[in-house]
């Protein structure tokens, strides 16, 4: 069970690292508190904490991209991965050890922010399981993208800031803070290529408007496609770096 040993190691490396924990929890939490507080007044009914909750959760899942890059690129750059590769561990065991860990972080984040949303007074009307599926597929897509970036990055210092920039831009244009319907059509077209606007929209529909799976079927299929594609590419290229 080598993958399990790697999973445990990654878990310990992260929860003992204040910086990693800060990125994973404190950063999205800060956004939640700031936006929650600023919208707690008599704002317009269409732009309140209910509107923002799905976006904030998607933001935390977007942060899984730099998180994955940070973990993988750091181990790769520092030569730790090379050290592990001198043991008889197989590439699939490495990949499973890392992805399982990131998946656990993503699930923990989804649960944490959904509970927080409830505490902050978000009215959850829809199917929790369905919205969980939307978030999970989004998280898997983020992990896959993170692996892909880490496969091509030479160093953590080079990869991490670029990924943060990309993530923040994506967050801005994916309807995390305001509806993408305000944006010009060409931006909407670009944004819709990525999974996050679909995730925000589907989560909003399910959580707040209480729609069923049929209404968000196309979004879920799109997210599923992204999750499968990004993971397959991430695994392929990351495994390739291990067989240099």
């Amino acid at each position, binding site marked *: 069970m*080598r993958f399990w*040993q*790697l999973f445990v*190691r990654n878990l*310990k*490396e992260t929860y*003992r*690292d204040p910086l990693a924990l800060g990125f994973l929890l404190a950063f999205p939490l800060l956004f939640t508190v700031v936006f929650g507080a600023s919208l707690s007044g008599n704002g317009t009914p269409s732009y309140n904490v209910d509107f923002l909750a799905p976006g904030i959760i998607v933001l935390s899942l977007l942060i899984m991209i730099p998180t994955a890059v940070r973990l993988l690129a750091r181990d790769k750059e*520092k*030569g*730790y991965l*090379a*050290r*592990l*590769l*001198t*043991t*008889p*561990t*197989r590439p699939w065991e490495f990949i499973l050890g890392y992805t399982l860990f990131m998946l656990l972080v993503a699930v923990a984040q989804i649960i944490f922010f959904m509970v927080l949303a409830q505490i902050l007074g978000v009215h959850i009307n829809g199917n929790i399981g369905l919205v969980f599926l939307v978030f999970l597929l989004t998280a898997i897509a983020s992990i896959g993208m993170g692996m892909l970036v880490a496969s091509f990055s030479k160093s953590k210092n080079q990869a991490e800031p670029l990924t943060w920039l990309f993530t923040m831009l994506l967050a801005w244009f994916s309807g995390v803070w305001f509806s993408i319907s305000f944006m010009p059509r060409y931006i909407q077209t670009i944004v819709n290529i990525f999974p996050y606007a679909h995730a925000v929209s589907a989560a909003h529909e399910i959580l707040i408007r209480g729609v069923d799976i049929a209404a968000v079927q196309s979004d879920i299929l799109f997210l599923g496609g992204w999750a499968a594609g990004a993971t397959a590419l991430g695994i392929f290229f990351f495994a390739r770096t291990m*067989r*240099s």
Partner: protein
Amino acid sequence: MTDTEKAPATAVESPRQPDPTLAVQTFGLSKIFGNLVAVDGINLGIKKGELFALLGPNGAGKTTTISMLCCLLKPTGGTASIMGHDITREPYEVKKLIGVSPQETTLSEHLNPLENLELIANLHGISSAKAKKWSKLMLETMGLEERARDQVRKFSGGMKRRLSIAMALIHDPQVLVLDEPTLGLDPQARRTVWEYVARLKGEKTILLTTHYMEEADSLADRIGIIDGGKVVALGSSFDLKTSGLDKHTMIIKGWNITQNAVMNLQRRYSDIKIEGGTILITDRHLEFSDVVSRLHSEGISLRSVYFKEPTLEDVFIRITGKELRE
């Protein structure tokens, strides 16, 4: 080993028949990155139980060679075998037999030393109970037991390096690979690492890379000098220093060295230098008794007279025409 072998200058395809007396054997091992020939057809044989040092300047091809032997890089040409297993065809068999301490002290910084050791042991397929027991023993051996519960990010460079070597040894490998084990350490920490490595001599086959001459000189049974991706000389430290040495240098220190005394010496020896109160004579046929009697006849009272020991640095300069910088 009585004679120093001059390694072939070009890649030579030797028969790929593993020799059972050798722990590590390379057959025209090469690695090319783009236009750069990092390793150029190395043919080496390291005996079982031998401590072999690959000595060379930065960028000579030491780490690339090691990376290929550890199955981290695929050779562009040739191959190698570790305890009879081919590195390209049986990488997982090779990985079971080797323990590697990389050049950079790569540890899991937020884990404590026990957790670091146990992880590597587990990845080598050792059961959890055994891994725990062996890790404790290994920490004691390396003198780190008092820091067993501290995260390794708080460790000094020397402690990290000792832990790194312990991680390479945790599964009791047959071949230990130490890539620049004392790089960046202060002299005291370096000596401590040397003591640990010296203790392992004879127990394990050890392949060590270094660009510190002193390290290769004091630890290795045999040394391979590598430059520009080629092994340019091979032999024991003594063999390397003495073979091809056609001139000797004598260092003379006296209380009252006079011009006449120097002129007397110059009648027989042409290459004489005077530095302060010291005379340096370099010659093909230096005779101790002749030098001493010439100086005595001039009434010089001598403080010391000795032959200068050749160093590996001298050997390196003689072979490559370059200095081996630390």
